């Protein structure tokens, strides 16, 4: 191909698409969007032809993400919180809008793939915000729950509520996570073991819109 023929232009799009869908790493697709304009359009919009107004709506990166994370097939659409005002001058063209939407999707799935594949397991909790009640602040404050050790400076390290006479009344602890998007693989809860304490019966976890609970066995 020394004569500078563009391979993707020579092949029908089906073939080029198949080559690129054989790639299994999102970073390949993201990187290859820098090869040339037609490749970028190809990667983003998987074109029927290289006239970019013939766009079919599925991006290659989105497909790959969905193959890797099947849960994503339940996602209807994605959006960015900022940067949407760009290019409104040409909003009259629906093809233009469609292309902008595809580019946006490409950016989001690139961000997502990056987030999901590059994290090393680490603490997700950025800070403890508030406890519904604290018996002795700060000695028994919520910040102690982030301390993995049982004892700090020869004192037991724990959080204690003021306590309720009615066991049905809940106590809550609220934390801020370190990112907008976190993959949580593990939650550690350690009931305090000691005299004169009343442990919880049931623990609920609330992650933005998801509620779940874990029954804790206390020995």
């Amino acid at each position, binding site marked *: 191909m020394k004569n500078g023929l*563009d*391979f993707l232009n020579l*092949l029908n799009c089906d073939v080029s698409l*198949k080559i690129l869908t054989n790639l299994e*790493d999102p970073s390949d697709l993201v990187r*290859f969007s*820098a090869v040339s304009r037609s490749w970028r359009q190809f990667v983003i919009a998987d074109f029927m032809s290289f006239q970019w107004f013939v766009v079919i709506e599925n991006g290659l990166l989105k497909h790959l993400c969905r193959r890797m994370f099947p849960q994503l097939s339940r996602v209807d659409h994605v959006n960015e919180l900022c940067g949407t005002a760009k290019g409104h001058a040409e909003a009259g063209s629906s093809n233009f809008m469609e292309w902008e939407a595809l580019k946006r999707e490409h950016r989001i799935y690139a961000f997502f793939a990056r987030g999901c594949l590059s994290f090393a397991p680490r603490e997700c909790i950025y800070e403890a915000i508030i406890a519904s009640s604290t018996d002795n602040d700060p000695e028994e404050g919520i910040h102690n729950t982030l301390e993995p050790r049982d004892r700090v400076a020869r004192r037991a390290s724990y959080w204690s509520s003021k306590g309720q006479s009615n066991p049905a009344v809940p106590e809550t602890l609220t934390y801020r996570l370190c990112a907008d998007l976190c993959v949580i693989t593990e939650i550690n809860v350690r009931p305090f073991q000691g005299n004169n304490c009343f442990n919880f019966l049931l623990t609920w976890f609330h992650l933005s819109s998801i509620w779940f609970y874990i029954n804790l066995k206390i020995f």
Partner: protein
Amino acid sequence: MSTTVPKKITLRTADNHEFEVDEAVAMELGTVKTFFDENPDATDEPIPLPNVSSKCLSTIIEYCKFHLSLRARGNDSSSAEEEGKVYDEELIKTHDNESLVELILAVNYLNIKDMLDTLNQGVADRIKNKSVEYVRRFFGIENDYTPEEEAEIRAQYEWAFEGVDPDDD
């Protein structure tokens, strides 16, 4: 009375070489098969294949013969599958980047689905985790970005450009 299709079919390549093949082999080439389906009365004149070089066609004929013979063995599928895989891997290995791309163009034109799938996977394996420059050279693609545009993409997705394999071409 319709004309029976001849048992041997002659194919003529772009560089004017003629290949005489069994009908069964020729029918593996989707483009040739379609031609005969649409022209049942075709004479036994050579079929011109203006987009295929003789080098590519001989590789393709070998491939079709081999896979036909594998299929003819029928139910003995696991060892046939294994042999097929070894053959395909060897096919990829013995072609450099340029001839692989040339072969894909020919196989695509001749519409041989299985062979095309094999070659596509081969190409994908060769470009995965490679630099943008390598991919451009591989496919002979001209970079039509302005330096500013390219820098912008690189900055936006810096993580995707880290840790790629060194170019080995």
